[in-house]
């Protein structure tokens, strides 16, 4: 599929390098509060990018990605308990991450086989139910300790405060999500998924292996989400079922993508940045009004920018170029 995509312009590479350099320096100049905000933007931005691997290209919108988030968190947390103090915290985290990703791969394949046969709202509801079921299971069986909760060990790294250390871990997670998304988008898989999003039946008729492509995108998305869940609970230091199996986590991934622009790599990151700043900084102190104002802003965004901020920007840019072309025409 080489040649299908234009080469990435040098300006984009330069901008990305500049942003990355800024992101690396940030923990050494920003306050702990700003770092925690940045942590959330990187984590949930990265998760929204991972959600876009399927939901962004196609119309398969998962309303239950918290299932994989929680699955990963529980897998790593419980394995860490079994490994015990004989293993360092870093080793427990790394082994836990690998285990969580492996478990989520198996779970995603198992759930995808029946669920990806459904389309549209049926798929969304099935995923919602899947997350609810996992949440209940984690609370019902004492083996999982989800009802009572359990602490996670404190990860330390010489020379770094906890808030700085987790900032870098979330940054790494976000970069991996972005890299996976970009690689998928620029591959045959990405083109196939885009075709599925436009018309799945026609794509299948034209020879696109729709079932396999959807499965791969779903599994990749689930694995990344599980990894995010592991880092999230290690960052908090304590978890219960209610910490991770939360419907608002699933909904926020969709919301961030919608606000920034679904199907793009920058959109979910922009959406996460705007919404987290809006709800936790701008409106954070408005005790009684913040939910109402957040709702009002969202309605305004949907009306004024239905394709997200990137869509709005692109529309404005094409209008401007059209106007320039018209002016230049003799």
């Amino acid at each position, binding site marked *: 599929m080489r040649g299908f995509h234009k080469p990435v312009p040098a300006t984009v590479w330069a901008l990305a390098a500049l942003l990355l350099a800024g992101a690396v320096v940030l923990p050494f100049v920003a306050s702990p509060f700003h770092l925690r*905000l940045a942590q959330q933007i990187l984590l949930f931005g990265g998760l929204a990018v991972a959600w876009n691997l399927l939901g962004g290209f196609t119309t398969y919108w998962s309303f239950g990605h918290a299932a994989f988030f929680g699955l990963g968190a529980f897998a790593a947390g419980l394995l860490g308990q079994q490994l015990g103090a004989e293993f360092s915290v870093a080793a427990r985290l790394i082994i836990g991450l690998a285990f969580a990703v492996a478990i989520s791969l198996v779970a995603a394949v198992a759930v995808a086989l029946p669920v990806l046969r459904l389309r549209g709202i049926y798929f969304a509801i099935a995923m919602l139910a899947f997350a609810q079921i996992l949440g*209940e299971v984690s*609370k019902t069986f004492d083996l999982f300790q989800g*009802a009572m*909760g359990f602490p996670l060990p404190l990860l330390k790294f010489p020379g770094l405060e906890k808030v700085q250390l987790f900032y870098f871990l979330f940054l790494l997670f976000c970069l991996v999500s972005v890299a996976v998304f970009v690689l998928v988008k620029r591959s045959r898989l990405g083109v196939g998924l885009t075709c599925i999003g436009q018309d799945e039946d026609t794509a299948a008729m034209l020879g696109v292996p729709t079932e396999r492509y959807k499965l791969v995108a779903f599994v990749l998305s689930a694995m990344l989400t599980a990894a995010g869940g592991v880092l999230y609970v290690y960052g908090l230091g304590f978890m219960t079922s209610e910490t991770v199996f939360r419907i608002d986590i699933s909904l926020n991934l969709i919301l961030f993508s919608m606000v920034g622009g679904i199907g793009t790599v920058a959109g979910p990151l922009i959406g996460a940045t705007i919404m987290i700043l809006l709800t936790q900084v701008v409106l954070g102190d408005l*005790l009684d009004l913040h*939910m109402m104002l957040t709702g009002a802003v969202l309605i305004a965004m949907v009306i*004024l*920018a239905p394709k997200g901020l990137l869509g*709005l920007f692109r529309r404005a840019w094409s209008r401007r170029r059209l106007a320039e072309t018209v002016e230049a025409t003799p």
Partner: protein
Amino acid sequence: MTKISRRTALGLFGASVVGSTALRFAPARAQDGGVIRFGGSLGMSGRYAETGLNIRHGYETAIKYLNEEMGGVEIGGKAYRFELGIVDDASDPARATTLIQRQVDEGVDFFLGSYGSNVVLPCAGITEAAGKIMVQVGASADQIFTQGYDYIFGLFPRASRAWVTSIELFKTIEPKPKSVSIIATNGAFSKLNAEAAAAGCKEIGIEVLDVLELPEQVTDASSALATIRSRTPDILITTTVDQNSLVIVRQMIATETNVPLLYQFLGPQLPAYRESLGAKATGVIMQLPWDASLDFSDPVFGDTESYISYYNETNKRPLSYHTVGASACITTYVEAMRAAGSIDPAAVRDALDAIDITTAFGPVKFTEDGDGDPILMGAKIGQVQDGKIKVIFPTDFKTGELVYPTPTWAQKG
């Protein structure tokens, strides 16, 4: 009429976001100018919103009283007024930690707690690391008090000790109960209490026949009740929350499931529960984290009765034990500051370690780990008698005698 274009609207929106963000980032020292600011987060939306609002009303009532009725408080020769800087964590631990971190960065030294151990514990990690105090009434998981934290205090005993007074009561019952069954739901709160109750009963030689688990939202308890009928215990304990307790007791009445003593952890405290069941509620016992009939002296409000009348004059929301406990958090802080003669966090922390007072909520004395003393601050035990709650244990607080065994549902009329 001038139309606002989409571009203008978005521009205005963007400018307001940027402007507000810039203003928000301007730091503000919390204890400047004789004003002591209490920080913290509460779930005022989301899963824990109802209890969050109860706690918020308690904080606000105490602050209002200190500023408006007392004109502030003198600490170490300087007069201080108080300010409440609570934010909504939406019952989300990640959001809560970020908002708490902001307040720590802004220089807030004194924190009040959120609700729910999964929210409070991560926040406690942040305030503890920064050497800031937290006094809270919304979480009692053991893990909060077993981390070795020096600056975290809770008005309730840790969860595993919440049954100390109940077990002491069981020891005094004549004829001595021989067996107990427990019904729990699969939530943290209910399970933890069921475990603590079972462990306590075993310790004093009461056989635990069954620990039955129901879904978090109870709609049908018939299978559990069939087990109870087949192996009737002397005491049936339900470690369930209000609505679930009501569902269980209604099904007990409908199926004539009689036990000599029904202990419902939460539910009978509410007037709605007792009104709904009428005479059938007679004899049910419960934990009373707080009860209006117990009058304690309070260094800020005078006593419990004065607190209740001030609260009712200034609030429309019905009083709950979380509300009174939240006000007691502020009272406890103020008394510790007065005792320390300073608002230096380390000095106030030391004063909290040594505090031994009564408030409208009851006695306040912390263990070495920072949770409430299990006997002094543990729940009292009440029993519904003639439609009202009588405190039957501990002996010092008694307003009535335990009725045991209680009449059957049919006998209650």
